[in-house]
């Protein structure tokens, strides 16, 4: 960063006779106005597109609303229906829970393993980092989801390959027992983003700690457990929270792979897929709002649990405990 690129405006004479305290007070007041001027797009967005809609959707979740007639108050009916009278909802909750529980740990483990492999300085390291990151960029789009669909279909590449070993699956995406794994593999494939964050974290660990561990005669595994993992724990927490939030909201791959239906037999019916179906195919906006608020609640609880338990397993260096 060079300050040479600074374009300085011509100096103006300072306002003479500025007393210290009133000037500061005046400055504070005038800064407030300027601050809100700078913030005005943000304020509009926060009020009109975030806070307002949040309150509105909370209200709508207690109503029957089809977008064309005005919402009709039904109290807790939507929430009650969700849990007692909607097999599709329960299926979607189960599928999503399974997806989050399997894909997030696998993805983070892959990210950490490859980060450890790429951490030491070797030739081509920069290139390798970028290459491992590439799937994270491509994988969120429709194109790669289509590739997955074709690769895991009946007599597709994967089926042919496993068929050569006598395991004819009939195409993973057509089998309720396997279909979800197609999406899990696609999620894990995109481990590059958390990997890069792990790499940045590994760089922050002081080498003295490793020297000390070596002096103590710690083996590789012991050093990893006693130095690397604790020092990396804040990064692990960060990645865990973000990946979990993302996984709960996954939509595109399930929509594309299952052709928008969540099949076969609801095995890829992600929560968001069902929410979309209720809201935008069937125009049950009140019902979909109730689902959205449940999602928010679940994410908030899980995040709170992560942060709440983090004091026990996250280690911040320089922290007195």
């Amino acid at each position: 960063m060079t300050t040479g690129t600074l374009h300085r405006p011509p100096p103006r004479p300072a306002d003479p006779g500025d007393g210290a305290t009133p000037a500061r007070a005046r400055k504070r007041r005038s800064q407030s106005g300027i601050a809100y001027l700078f913030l005005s797009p943000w304020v509009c967005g926060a009020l009109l597109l975030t806070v307002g809609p949040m309150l509105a959707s909370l209200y709508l979740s207690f109503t029957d609303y089809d977008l064309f007639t005005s919402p009709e108050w039904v109290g807790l009916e939507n929430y009650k229906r969700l849990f007692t009278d909607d097999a599709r909802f329960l299926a979607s909750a189960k599928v999503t829970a399974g997806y989050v529980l399997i894909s997030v740990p696998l993805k983070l483990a892959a990210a950490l393993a490859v980060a450890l492999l790429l951490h030491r300085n070797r030739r081509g390291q920069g290139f390798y980092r970028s290459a491992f990151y590439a799937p994270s960029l491509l994988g969120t789009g429709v194109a790669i989801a289509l590739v997955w669909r074709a690769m895991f279909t009946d007599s597709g590449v994967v089926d042919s390959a496993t068929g050569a070993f006598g395991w004819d699956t009939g195409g993973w995406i057509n089998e309720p027992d396997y279909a979800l794994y197609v999406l899990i593999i696609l999620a894990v494939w995109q481990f590059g983003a958390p990997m890069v964050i792990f790499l940045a974290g590994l760089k922050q660990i002081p080498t003295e700690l490793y020297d000390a561990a070596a002096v103590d005669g710690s083996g590789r595994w012991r050093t990893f457990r006693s130095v690397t993992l604790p020092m990396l724990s804040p990064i692990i927490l960060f990645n865990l929270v973000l990946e979990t939030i993302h996984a709960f909201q996954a939509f595109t791959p399930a929509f594309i792979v299952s052709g928008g239906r969540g099949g076969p037999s609801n095995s890829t019916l992600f929560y968001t897929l069902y929410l979309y179906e209720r809201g935008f195919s069937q125009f049950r906006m009140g019902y979909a709002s109730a689902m959205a608020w449940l999602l928010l609640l679940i994410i908030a609880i899980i995040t709170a649990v992560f942060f709440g338990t983090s004091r026990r397993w996250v280690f911040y260096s320089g922290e007195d405990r």
Partner: protein
Amino acid sequence: MTTLQDGRSARPDGGPDVRPASSRRPGASAARLRGIGWHVLIIGMLALLLYPVVWLLATSIKPTDEILSSLSLLPSRLAPENYTAAMDGIAGISVWTFFGNSVLVAIGSVIGNLVSCALAAYAFARLRFRLRGPLFAFTLLTIMLPYHVVLIPQYTIFQKLDLVGTFVPLILPKLLATDAFFVFLMVQFIRGLPRELDDAAEIDGCGPVLTFRYVILPLLKPALVTTAIFTFIWTWNDFFSQLVYLNDPDSYTLPLALRLFIDQTSESAFGPMFAMSVLSIVPVMLFFLAFQRYLVEGIATSGLKG
């Protein structure tokens, strides 16, 4: 792998050993072997990892009848007709229309995020006002907020304004700094800039507006570039909000156009579908190749996700 075999001897041709002394020590050859093993391992993993992308590229030039059945990456003959069919588009709409729509939405989003997030970030990072703490905390919280919670009322608003089917619902939120992550990113970046610069500008007679314009904005460039690249790629890849808001094939973006192929059950559309898939990831690949250092550093320093 000849290098593996002659890893012991210094030079197979018996010429003078010009390597640094350290590598001639006993044990050095073992380290070198490990190094080669490391490269082999990494390249093997990469081959496996990038196989689907290669498969896509290969498939897009295969004749349709070979697409699903053949394990071989190489086509028996080249099938450029996939690309001509993809160029013709679908439902009577040229692929350039979809491309243009995607570009419009992406560019609009980039400009929106750059302007609104930079303004907000400067206020949060440098200006004093009473609600700064709570408002910034609110920004951080909205990073975790699922889009689905605000989606339905937002949709209702845009529907009442008769804007569903236009690009406004996709771009306007960016102009209003609703991508909290980028606000956060820029705030962190500005906080890392020395305050003395602001003080100097103030002594020179600059108010906040001029300080922002002439001091902060030029220095903020790395964060702005990161924001621009990621906004572009994310918008380009975005499917959900475009699926919700765009309902007329003429306004479809590339992801939505690709989806049209799924509804066609006949396998004859497979070749053009993958050709169009390739076209749709070309901008992302170009961005990746051009900015890979920025991309990797961007997420490393800010915690952005792909």
